[in-house]
């Protein structure tokens, strides 16, 4: 293989399909998203994939790269294509729409199911809530709020693969930030939603979500917190 081109295998089709091989010129600081974009603009305009910001903020460009889910816009080819080949597939655990684009509907529906939204308790007449940055609960919430909804953790989670009903690391991580939000008024409903079937207790603590989260968040730690919170609430008879 020449050093100035890269052999790239890209998934084409839906659940049924095959890999198509392309030769892509190598460039300095090239990202996996650059590769996919090159293929679509120069070799095959029919290639479907999804991206928006290109700088790791929007969370829309995640794909499976050489077996692992990654945010492609900030994954350098040098880091993942050691042997000079790149195999790019859609995210796992989500239905494939076409080629590298997956249907995220189920992923976001699970956020809704986990009651992963803020329930306000104050009115516009109230003053701003004062939450100290040193408050332990504030620290727990801060540790998890930078999620960009890219779906990498969901794709890396074997529990999601084994138990289709499982809410998944991202939705539960968001729920944990809200459990630690002292301004939130939806705690009982949320704990009830995440304690049931497919909830936090289904997690096997494989920690692949933590290993692969591009934002270095730790959904396993969040889920462990939810396990303790739901057990505590159940013992108190609150849920």
């Amino acid at each position, binding site marked *: 293989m020449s050093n100035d081109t890269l052999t790239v295998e890209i998934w084409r089709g839906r659940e049924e399909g095959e890999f198509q091989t392309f030769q892509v010129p190598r460039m300095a600081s090239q990202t996996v998203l650059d590769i996919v974009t090159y293929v679509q603009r120069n070799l095959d305009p029919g290639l479907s994939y999804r991206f928006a910001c290109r700088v790791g903020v929007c969370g829309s460009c995640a794909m499976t790269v050489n077996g692992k889910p990654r945010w492609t816009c900030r994954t350098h080819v040098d880091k993942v294509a050691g042997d000079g080949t790149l195999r790019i597939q859609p995210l796992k655990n989500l239905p494939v729409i076409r080629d590298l684009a997956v249907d995220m509907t189920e992923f976001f529906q699970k956020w809704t199911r986990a009651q992963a939204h803020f329930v306000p308790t104050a009115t516009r007449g109230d003053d701003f809530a004062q939450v100290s940055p040193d408050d332990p609960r504030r620290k727990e919430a801060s540790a998890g709020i930078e999620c960009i909804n890219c779906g990498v953790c969901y794709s890396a989670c074997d529990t999601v693969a084994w138990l289709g009903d499982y809410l998944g690391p991202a939705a539960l991580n968001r729920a944990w930030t809200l459990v630690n939000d002292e301004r939130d008024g939806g705690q009982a409903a949320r704990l009830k939603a995440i304690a049931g079937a497919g909830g936090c207790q289904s997690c*096997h603590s494989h*920690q*692949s979500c933590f290993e692969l989260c591009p934002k270095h968040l*730790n959904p396993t730690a969040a889920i462990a917190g939810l396990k303790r919170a739901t057990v505590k609430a159940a013992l108190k008879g609150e849920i």
Partner: protein
Amino acid sequence: MKTHRNHANYWAFVLHRVSGLALLLFLPAHFYVLALAVEEAATLDMFLSWTEAPVVKLLETGLVILLAAHMTGGLRILAIEFLAWRDWQKSVVAITGGLSLAAGLIFLLNAG
């Protein structure tokens, strides 16, 4: 290995699952042998003398390691689920592995 599964905590899960299944297969055999003491003492004695063979001692060492791995792995999971989160999870996996191997070694040293 190019898979999302190739990291210490996943291997700890695999070991816990495999050791659990292996012990599940072992336990009925274990209880069967114990039951021999009640009705077939001679057969039990024969079995016990067989267990003195070095190769059986080696197999037993494996069994001790599996038991220890399953126990320490279980304690690790209980710690994750009921104690405050610790960021040194990979060290915990290493400790459980070390303790399991140490248990096997102690058994082997006392096997003679």
